[in-house]
């Protein structure tokens, strides 16, 4: 490779050299060339200054009010989600247990038992109905993407 080609190659490596991202052999080649090449030395020096300036560049922080709002929504939704998972899985397990129990002990239910089954069935139906309504409303809510 002629000296101009080598010079161009080193120029292409200066940025990575500055960031200490070259192999040991590459870094050594760059170092030796830069010691003798004023253009590359100047370019390296300017890149270094540029890097320092960029690192120190002020960038605005997040607006506190909106961050607090987001934090609140995260802290509220985390336990809420867990609660829903627990309620749903508990309800499913309970209903399943009752169904299995009823099949194993097929007999006329006691009035108290019948009442309990009626209440549970009512709660489950109500739950399904509310969940279904919520889903339908959400699907057709034109403003759901509008932030409050």
């Amino acid at each position, binding site marked *: 490779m002629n000296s101009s080609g080598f010079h161009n190659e080193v120029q292409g490596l200066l940025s990575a050299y500055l960031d200490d991202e070259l192999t040991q052999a590459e870094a050594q080649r760059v170092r030796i060339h830069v010691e003798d090449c004023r253009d590359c030395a100047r*370019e390296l020096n300017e890149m270094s200054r540029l890097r320092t300036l960029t690192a120190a560049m002020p960038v*605005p922080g997040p607006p506190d009010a909106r961050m607090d709002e987001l934090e609140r929504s995260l802290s509220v939704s985390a336990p809420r989600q867990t609660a829903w998972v627990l309620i749903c899985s508990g309800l499913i397990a309970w209903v399943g247990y009752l169904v299995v129990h009823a099949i194993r002990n097929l007999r006329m239910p006691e009035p108290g038992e019948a009442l309990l089954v009626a209440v549970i069935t009512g709660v489950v139906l109500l739950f399904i109905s509310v969940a279904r309504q919520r889903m339908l409303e959400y699907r057709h809510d034109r403003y759901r993407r509008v932030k409050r």
Partner: protein
Amino acid sequence: MMAAGQAVIETGAEEHKSSDVVPVFEKHRRKVYQFAYQVTGNMDDAMDLTQEAFLRLHREWGRLPGDCDAGWWLLKVVRNLAVDLHRKRSSRRECAVETDVTDVRTRGPETTAMHNELSARLWAEIAVLPPPQREALLLRDWHGLSYAQIADVVGATISTVTWRIHDARTALRKKMTRYL
């Protein structure tokens, strides 16, 4: 309000053991927002992207592998959201980056924060870099990530990242010569 760069997002392997996402939010919210701001150049978009990133983290929290670094994961999400946003606006013939660049040039990242002509000038020049170069440069110089980490965040090879940073610096050096 202001923060200098070079504060690397710390590894999140330990924090991930916690079941609560709020401490992670506390730890990374500032950096995530600032990266969102740097890639969009717009405070409202930055806030929207930050919010979406943390909501996604919240949804995915239980499914993320134990050794997953929440900081990088969030940066990746923000970066992908920014790309989506840009595509969406481009398809509607709104060029988000150009609009925001004008915004940055007239007002800086935030007028009150930009007393310094040099910083304002530098930011204006960074803002007009092609987005892949801009994000690679900022992830390296401002956020202090290594090339391998940047490659992971932006989904490119280390070699590509190396050239993006090199091209970005070369372009900036030409435009900022009289300040260097």
